[in-house]
């Protein structure tokens, strides 16, 4: 055999040990510490893209785009609260802490949301005067850490959100690294400046659903039963968590899928704990229906919502509204290609920047560095967010009208089919072109 002429196979990289995996092994070997980053899951997961709307046909009658009325308003908290809140579009801004975000970013979120008549949410670390001032409707988070928690802000809030978990890290607490513990953040959290701060993963003064019921009663008593009380859970056991939240007296359940963003969490947590939003909505809706509470207790879902189609799909699956974090930050200016040179200096590229824990955000959003933070103009960024939120609502309306609905809440699972068998099973809608719902009748 002529050994000089044997054709060689091309170099082949492992699908299992891909470049990212190899680099992570090297990073871990060098440091001995897990990787901490911001943002949500990066690997491909079953998601809302796997669903399609059917639109109208001979048997379904569409509404005229632009002209015929298609409502988008949502009332939240009518179950027990004396003062339920009404938002004009079914899209809210998720809780993101001052600390993880700059004061300018929080102000921009408030401006953008208020301009289109929707709510913003505080986060771990308390309420700032700026965000209260710029948010017409502000939801105040009640977290395990209770950083900055006080009765005056509680009374100033329009609603209260008891946070039990987040989609990015169900079962995990929070962290804010020392670079972001500025004097103001430290004072608001009663912590020494510059330390790596941990937020507790469990509430300090209650355990389990029976205690939660009493805790909610206390919060209602303190605020004279005026404010809607939300309970936020990471998507893990959505049927039971929703049922237990309802039992504990929630007005609103917030369900955050595993794709949901975070300011800082271990990579292993972000990518491997919790279930995708697509798989979580139907069990939660089922729980509400089984209890006769669908549309009485509202369901807000989040985790990877990007466009009006995502919004419409969540509503069709039975949610009352959605919530956005990452997309809102992008609308403000996060990961902007115009900042490519700054990202290069940080060893990354626009679109991949996820070191939100690090405080060196060139867009001035996930930072406490005064020089970086002033790069974000809250008015302009707020306008971009308002524009983006309007587009989400318009897109959702476009789809709803095509399906013949005079309110986005009239969208229903029957308007949907799925592209993949797994999505059909998770969302409990038929595989396109068939009447097959894998596992139907056997949840």
């Amino acid at each position, binding site marked *: 055999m002529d050994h000089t002429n044997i054709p060689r196979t091309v170099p082949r990289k492992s699908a299992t040990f891909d470049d990212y995996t190899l680099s992570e092994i090297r990073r871990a070997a060098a440091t001995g510490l897990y990787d901490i980053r911001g943002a949500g899951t990066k690997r491909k997961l079953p998601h809302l893209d796997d669903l399609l709307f059917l639109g109208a046909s001979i048997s379904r009658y569409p509404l005229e785009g632009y002209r015929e009325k298609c409502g988008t308003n949502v009332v939240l908290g009518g179950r027990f609260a004396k003062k339920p809140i009404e938002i004009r579009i079914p899209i809210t801004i998720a809780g993101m802490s001052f600390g993880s975000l700059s004061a300018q970013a929080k102000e921009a979120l408030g401006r953008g949301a208020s301009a289109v008549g929707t709510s913003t949410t505080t986060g771990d670390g308390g309420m700032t005067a700026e965000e209260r001032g710029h948010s017409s409707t502000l939801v105040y988070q009640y977290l395990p850490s209770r950083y900055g928690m006080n009765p005056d802000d509680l009374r100033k809030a329009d609603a209260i959100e008891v946070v039990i978990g987040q989609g990015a890290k169900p079962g995990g607490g929070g962290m804010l690294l020392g670079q972001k513990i500025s004097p103001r953040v430290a004072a608001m959290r009663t912590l020494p400046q510059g330390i790596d701060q941990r937020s507790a993963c469990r509430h300090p*003064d209650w355990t389990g659903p029976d205690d939660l019921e009493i805790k909610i009663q206390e919060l209602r008593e*303190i605020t004279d039963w005026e404010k809607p009380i939300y309970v936020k859970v990471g998507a893990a056991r959505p049927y039971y968590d929703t049922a237990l939240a309802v039992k504990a007296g929630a007005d609103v359940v917030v369900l955050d899928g595993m794709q949901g963003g975070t300011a800082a969490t271990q990579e292993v947590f972000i990518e491997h704990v919790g279930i995708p939003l697509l798989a979580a909505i139907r069990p939660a809706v089922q729980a509400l229906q089984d209890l006769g509470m669908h549309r009485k207790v509202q369901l807000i879902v989040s985790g990877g919502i990007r466009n009006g189609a995502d919004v419409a799909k969540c509503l069709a699956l039975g949610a009352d509204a959605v919530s956005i974090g990452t997309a809102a930050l992008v609308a403000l200016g996060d990961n902007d290609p115009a900042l490519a040179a700054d990202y290069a200096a940080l060893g990354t590229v626009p679109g991949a920047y996820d070191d939100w824990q690090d405080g060196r955000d060139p867009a001035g959003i996930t930072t406490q560095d005064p020089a970086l933070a002033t790069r974000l103009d809250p008015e302009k960024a707020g306008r971009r967010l308002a524009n983006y939120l309007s587009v989400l609502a318009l897109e959702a309306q476009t789809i709803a009208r095509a399906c013949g609905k005079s309110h986005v809440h009239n969208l229903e699972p029957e308007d949907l089919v799925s592209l993949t068998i797994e999505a059909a099973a998770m969302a409990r809608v038929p595989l396109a072109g068939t009447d097959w719902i894998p596992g139907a009748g056997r949840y």
Partner: protein
Amino acid sequence: MTPSPHCIDLATATVRELNQRLHHLTADGDPGIWRVLNPAGGHAIAVGLNAPVTVEIDGHVGYYCAGMNKSASVRINGNAGVGVAENMMSGLVHVRGDASQAAGATAHGGLLVIDGNASARCGISMKGIDIVVKGSIGHMSAFMGQAGTLTVLGDAGEALGDSLYEARLFVRGSVASLGADCVEKEMRDEHRAVLHARLEAAGLAGEVDVSEFRRYGSARGLYHFHVDNVY
């Protein structure tokens, strides 16, 4: 005792009515002294108070009595359930009997005095409150305590001060064990002065000798994420 206009009997009134009336009191004018009868272990009694009122509760209370208290003085002539004075901002809460778990949890200020014992997680995530327990406290007390003082005349259970930040702990009796990153620290004059002031505020001046106490605090070893700090 003769019922006065400032007496609310929870055998006939609801907790809602009680709290609503207390919330209507303001700092101007004299909010006076209020008596609460027959609390019968009810939850969320006298929560969210926001005026310098004095509330005397005759009997045992359930969860979260005097939660988020600001300015008021609340005395419980009985035992208290979970989370008494949780997240208190200022004022005084005095439990004449024993307290259950998470007494004074996350509280930012004010003084909590417990004449009897306190159960587990006393002062968990405390953020500036002063707590004085005349009896003993249960396990995991002052967990993640950030600021304030916890003074215990009796003993402390396991894992005292686990993951402690800057809260200061004074224990006269034994400590079953210290939690992660909690260490015994030298008791200097400045600390004796702090302790003395707390004992005085709790009405124990002259009754208890500060030199019998030991001081515990954070080793501050967990303040930065590092491979050697992982538990």
